[in-house]
């Protein structure tokens, strides 16, 4: 567990099932306030599902998710609406609304949760866009943006309401080096400048480890490793090492289960 007592989110004994499979089978997390926490693991282990559980989009079978005194799975619709104002989420594909301009996209959460006059909304939107470097692109449509720009615009939308928590779902996937570097820097900058708490879900070890304060590694529905980046990178656990080092063979085998090689090629006599 993270040492700090000041945790923004405390997840206890979380269990979530999809179909026959238990995605999470009793996991515990602490997300420290003001820090960047990374959740890493192989594809398909439910990292995105975790973000959705925290955001209240999915409901867990058992366990609790405490955010600032609210137990997310137990909230009713109105309370959930109020809590969502404190969260921002950056989706893997940006998820900008394609029928609105960049400006309107960033203004969207403001219009939903506040009754600010147009002039004030304009100020806030321009400030957020400036923070991500897109103030000049405010009148473009999402289809006119490059991938990196779209993600930055989505980031501006995610921080529009000055949330306490911001969640990044695979932010580094498919980015060219410049965009990648920009995003990495932005995430760290915003976290420190705005006093945010950030959760990054990623399987990109190098980038994530460079900015994270604490890392959880999950696989098969359980936490298999956690610690500061140095601790995790130098771990003895075989499964964590295979993942961190990117080793092709180890606890996750290279060969799909099959019969003996010689027998298959019929090199052995019966």
């Amino acid at each position, binding site marked *: 567990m993270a040492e700090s007592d000041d945790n923004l989110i405390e997840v206890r004994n979380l269990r979530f099932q999809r179909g026959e499979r238990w995605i999470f089978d009793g996991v515990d997390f602490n997300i420290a306030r003001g820090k960047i926490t990374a959740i890493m693991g192989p594809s398909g282990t439910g990292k995105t599902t975790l973000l959705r559980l925290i955001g209240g989009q999915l409901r867990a079978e058992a366990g609790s998710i405490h955010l600032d005194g609210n137990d997310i799975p137990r909230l009713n619709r109105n309370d959930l609406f109020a809590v969502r104002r404190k969260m921002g*989420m950056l989706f893997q594909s940006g998820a900008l609304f394609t029928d609105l301009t960049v400006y309107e996209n960033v203004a969207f959460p403001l219009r939903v949760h506040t009754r600010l006059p147009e002039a004030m909304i304009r100020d806030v939107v321009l400030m957020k866009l400036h923070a991500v470097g897109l103030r000049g692109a405010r009148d473009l449509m999402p289809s006119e943006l490059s991938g990196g720009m779209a993600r930055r615009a989505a980031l501006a939308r995610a921080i529009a309401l000055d949330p306490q928590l911001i969640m990044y779902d695979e932010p580094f996937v498919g980015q060219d080096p410049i965009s990648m570097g920009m995003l990495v820097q932005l995430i760290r900058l915003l976290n420190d400048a705005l006093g945010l708490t950030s959760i990054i879900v990623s399987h990109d070890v190098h980038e994530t480890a460079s900015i994270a304060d604490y890392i959880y590694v999950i696989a098969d529905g359980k936490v298999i490793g956690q610690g500061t980046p140095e601790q995790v990178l130098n771990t003895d656990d075989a499964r964590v090492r295979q993942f961190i080092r990117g080793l092709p063979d180890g606890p996750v085998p290279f060969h799909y289960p099959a019969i003996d090689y010689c027998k298959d090629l019929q090199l052995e006599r019966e």
Partner: protein
Amino acid sequence: MNWMLNFVQRLGATGIETLGVFGRASLIWWRALWGMPDWRNGPTLLVRQLYFVGVYSLIIIVVSGLFIGMVLALQGYTVLVRFGADQALGQLVSLALIRELGPVVAALLFAGRAGSALTAEIGLMKTTEQLASMAMIGVDPLKRVLRPRLWAGMIAMPVLTQIFNMVAIWGAVAVGVDWLKVDAGSFWANMQSAVQFREDVLNGVIKSIVFGAVVTWIAVFQGYDATPTSEGISAATTRTVVYSSLAILGIDFLLTAVMFGVK
């Protein structure tokens, strides 16, 4: 013996699956339409959807209507003239259109054009996680995305049907009266005595409202329920057109039996 058991088992499983789909679709329809209307954003969203669903469909409706009216007049004439009953062309064309062809053909065209577009659009919004991010921001995508589209379909369909009927009758007039020289006076007089406002025109309007509601419901649900991949969206779009067409024809039979059935 085994294959028979398997067959029954699969039939049962499909039946239960279908019930589940129907239940999901009904829940979504209910949740989208229930509750207070959004007075701030609702009208703007509705007008926008009316544009994409109604105005964009105008061209295909008008062109199809024109040609169908002309063909009806032509075919009707060649048959009627053999019995010396060509003055009945007006009532033949108008009754066929207003009672049946107008609502049904316009609805089928609508399903193909607007229905598939709606499914693809919503499916794409689901795939690119726009619906999920909308929910995260705290806006119910059912109310913001689905509801305006459902209403737009219910309103646009009757409007399109009336326009279809009108254009088709003009086409029939052009062919029958102007080209085939059917007497204009008896053409219109017979038509007016045969077509009744309440029984024919209004029933046709009711049919088109029902079709609009059903087609839009299917289209919107298939998009919302689609697997978020490109194959998933393509399959959903196909399902929309197929299911809508079957539903239109089936419901048309029911409505016709109720409205125009033998008393």
